[in-house]
């Protein structure tokens, strides 16, 4: 119960408009000129010292993007985005070559300090003092668009794990990048993924060699800092035969009035017997209580279980962003492969969430599991949109889906849009969904025993999402629990 008490204390201090992470670091930025053209793409590529093939890849994507139109099918409304009114590249100006953490711009370090993000291994999470000898986390911190520091490189190197900014990987491991980049999310995949392919600035690259169990949780914290900068992350994780890696991604962004665009692409590849566990906590600025500002989060995440007996597991806690458009998916190509999706999506205020997953069963005896918990409060709209499909050759495909929605208040909406497609008679799909509000009886019971209305709601919500929280690595679970309560602040009473 200690954690819950902590949550409650924290919530008490915060107003709905006082976004905790709403501060701004003033660092000189190295920006590309506003707008998007072939020149912008060339500028980004040149900034990254990229080889010619990479530039060609980007330009191809850009040309294709010009022919595409923005998708309209999601249940989200936002003013038209002027893609020429954005900065596509911004990097903190390097003051000197970085040798160790101490040399990093102290402003940046301070920003992370405020965020409670540990670059030093001892402070894994704010408020959590980790005793010696526990598992460690390597942090590849992405400040705006450039990775400024990577810790634990040495230890990872010993294990043979490659964990570096993708811009470096393009230079240092072109054979790996060439082999896998764009094979899960092709450049032509969708409007936002294509845009990302053209202008992606940086992101993480992970390669785990055969038979290696990555010695620590890999972690990246994204942070959108520069005003009016779209952030286009590109992450590529490859787990070679028989390997295992757990990857954590967390995000916060400072408070702004203009909407910011974020269109990331994440590609995961597992070969035979490999496993990737990908966890996300996303608490970007959701806009103020009038629905002004906030991040537009249009993300394409997809994992490809390419090998037999491989597994990909997505866990996400979505509490931030004004608009979320995100469907982490699994292509279950290898026989006996397994996909999992655990999600908590919380919307409050004027947030709009349209999120879910796709489980595409191609191989034999593939299994998948979807647990989605949506919580809508305020005047927000929360949609689960999911696809489960078994192709003709996917003999013995199994899926279980449970999506539950909780409504807090009578002005919000919770929606479920599942697509269940079976093209193989031996496929066995089960889907269930429920929508309800927090029972008055339960609230009354809690309040009668001395809890405030808000504490009672926090308690019920934490119980509601427990199935998913349990899937998170411990370090994240604590933070996620805090976030959930903060996000729901102001939703009752």
């Amino acid at each position, binding site marked *: 119960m200690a954690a819950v008490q902590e949550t409650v204390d924290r919530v008490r201090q915060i107003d709905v408009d006082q976004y905790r992470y709403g501060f701004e670091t003033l660092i000189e930025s190295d920006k590309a000129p506003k707008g998007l053209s072939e020149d912008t793409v060339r500028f980004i590529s040149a900034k990254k010292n990229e080889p010619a093939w990479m530039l060609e890849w980007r330009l191809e994507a850009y040309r294709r993007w010009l022919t595409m139109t923005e998708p309209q099918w999601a249940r989200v409304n936002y003013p038209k985005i002027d893609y020429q009114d954005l900065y596509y590249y911004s990097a903190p100006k390097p003051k000197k070559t970085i040798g160790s953490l101490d040399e990093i711009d102290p402003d940046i370090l301070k920003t992370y300090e405020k965020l409670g993000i540990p670059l030093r291994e001892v402070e894994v999470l704010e408020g959590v003092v980790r005793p010696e000898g526990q598992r460690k986390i390597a942090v590849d911190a992405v400040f705006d668009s450039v990775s400024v520091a990577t810790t634990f490189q040495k230890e990872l190197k010993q294990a043979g794990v490659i964990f570096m900014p993708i811009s470096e990987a393009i230079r240092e491991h072109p054979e790996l990048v060439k082999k896998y980049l764009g094979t899960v999310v092709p450049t032509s995949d969708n409007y936002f993924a294509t845009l990302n392919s053209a202008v992606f600035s940086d992101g993480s690259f992970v390669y785990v060699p055969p038979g290696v169990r990555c010695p620590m949780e890999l972690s990246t914290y994204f942070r959108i800092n520069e005003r009016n900068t779209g952030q286009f992350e590109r992450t590529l994780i490859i787990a070679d035969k028989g390997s295992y890696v757990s990857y954590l991604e967390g995000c916060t962004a400072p408070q702004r009035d203009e909407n910011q665009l974020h269109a990331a692409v994440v590609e995961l590849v597992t070969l035979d017997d490999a496993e990737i566990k990908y966890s996300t906590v996303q608490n970007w600025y959701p806009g103020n209580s009038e629905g002004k500002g906030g991040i537009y989060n249009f993300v394409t995440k997809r994992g490809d279980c390419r090998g037999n007996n491989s597994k990909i597991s997505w866990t996400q806690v979505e509490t931030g962003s004004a608009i979320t458009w995100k469907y982490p998916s699994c292509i279950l190509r290898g026989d006996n492969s397994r996909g999992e999706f655990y999600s908590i999506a919380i919307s409050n205020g004027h947030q709009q969430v349209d999120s879910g997953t796709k489980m595409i069963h191609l191989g034999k005896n593939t299994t998948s599991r979807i647990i989605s918990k949506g919580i809508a409060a305020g005047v927000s709209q929360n949609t689960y949109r999911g696809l489960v499909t078994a192709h003709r050759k996917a003999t013995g495909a199994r899926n279980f889906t449970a999506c539950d929605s909780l409504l*807090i208040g009578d*002005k*919000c909406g919770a929606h479920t849009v599942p697509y*269940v497609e*079976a*093209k193989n008679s031996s*496929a*066995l799909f089960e889907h269930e969904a429920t*929508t*309800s509000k927090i029972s008055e009886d339960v609230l009354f019971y809690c309040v009668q025993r001395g809890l405030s209305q808000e504490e009672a709601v926090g308690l019920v919500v934490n119980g509601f999402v427990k199935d998913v929280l349990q899937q998170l690595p411990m370090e994240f679970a604590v933070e996620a629990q805090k976030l959930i309560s903060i996000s729901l602040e102001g939703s009752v009473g």
Partner: protein
Amino acid sequence: MNVALVKNETGSALSDSFAIARDRLPGTGKVAAAREAAFAAYAQAGLPHRRIEDWKYTDLRALMREVLPLAPAPDTAEFSRAASAAKLHAIDGVRRLVLVDGVFAPKLSELGGLEKGLVIRTLREALETGDAALQALLFTPDNANPMVALNSAMMTDGVVIDVADGVVLTQPLQIVHIASGTVPAAMFTRSLLRLGKDAGATLVESYIAAEGAKAYQVHDSLIISIGNNSRLDHVRLNEDGRDASNISSGVVSLGAHAHFNTFGMMSGAGVSRYQATIAFAGEGSRVETNGVNLLNGKQHADTTLFMDHAVPHCDSREIFRAVVDDRAHSVFQGRIIVRPHAQKTDAKMMTRALLLSDDAEADNKPELEIFADDVTCGHGATTGALDESLLFYLRARGLSEKEAQALLIQAFVGEAIESIVNDGLRELAIAAAQRWLEARG
């Protein structure tokens, strides 16, 4: 005539046939203007295709290709073929109202000795001489759906049934659609049932083909309004020819404390789509919708239901079962919307598909859209094959494989069929299911 908007070949061929058919379409003035508007809406959209979310699984451009020209009025030979088909599919104890090739056939219908408070007219009459309110009501279906718009533009005939306040009909009514033409053609029909307050009725809709009917298209729609404290039981049986297409729409609205029980079975037609919108307009009402798709060969059947909870304190239950064999394709799209303020809504939907062949396909899209918080809503969907262990149990007790399968399939669809209240009609549905199973061999 402003139909120059047509984009594709299919559409332009159709706009010609609309122009040709115009003289045969009943109604002038406002009715004609409403037809023009509906046709313009259709011409703009054309046949729905898979890029349109609502038609994702039923791409009519691929499945139907084109809308056939309006069927000519049936001649004597066709009437007599229709008469024998009607006899073959006759149901005991019902009042039969027959449409042959989209035209009301008084000789095949039973119009004598109507119960007190029951008025039956043809759509042609209503469009030509009916009052303005009735005519407006006949054009209520939304032109946003292209197939509804097409139906509004082209509707030639149908039945308009009025049941007065306080009248509970003892005899079920049956609307029989018979296709008899030997030349491929399309029929466009629309019917209306108005049930007053404290009234009750049972309505059966059947779609059958006379011997020799060729590759025809049925474009039908039914508007139902159920008054306060009234109850309607509705059964829909589609046994169209295997080379036929059937695109039907239902628009139902319920008053307060009303009850609507509907059952639909699709075992006929090569391509079929039944799209119904059921809207609650008064509090305390209840709807039970049940559907069964029994498909084999290359059949494609789509059931799309839209349950609109616009007012508080209403209950809805949807049970859907699909049995899909060979290369057939079953689609179920169920959407429940609970609008703001529709508190205390209790809505449940369960859809299950049974795949009997590796080439069969079942697509389920059960949707919940909820804008009110004090509600209990849920849906479930399952897809799978027959349970091996159950089959083994039955085989071990001496049943043949087919018998064992038949027994399990019967049980599978039974839950939906048992919802039919009228004993005679339930037996009829069970018999239809049985016929389908026997035809499997």
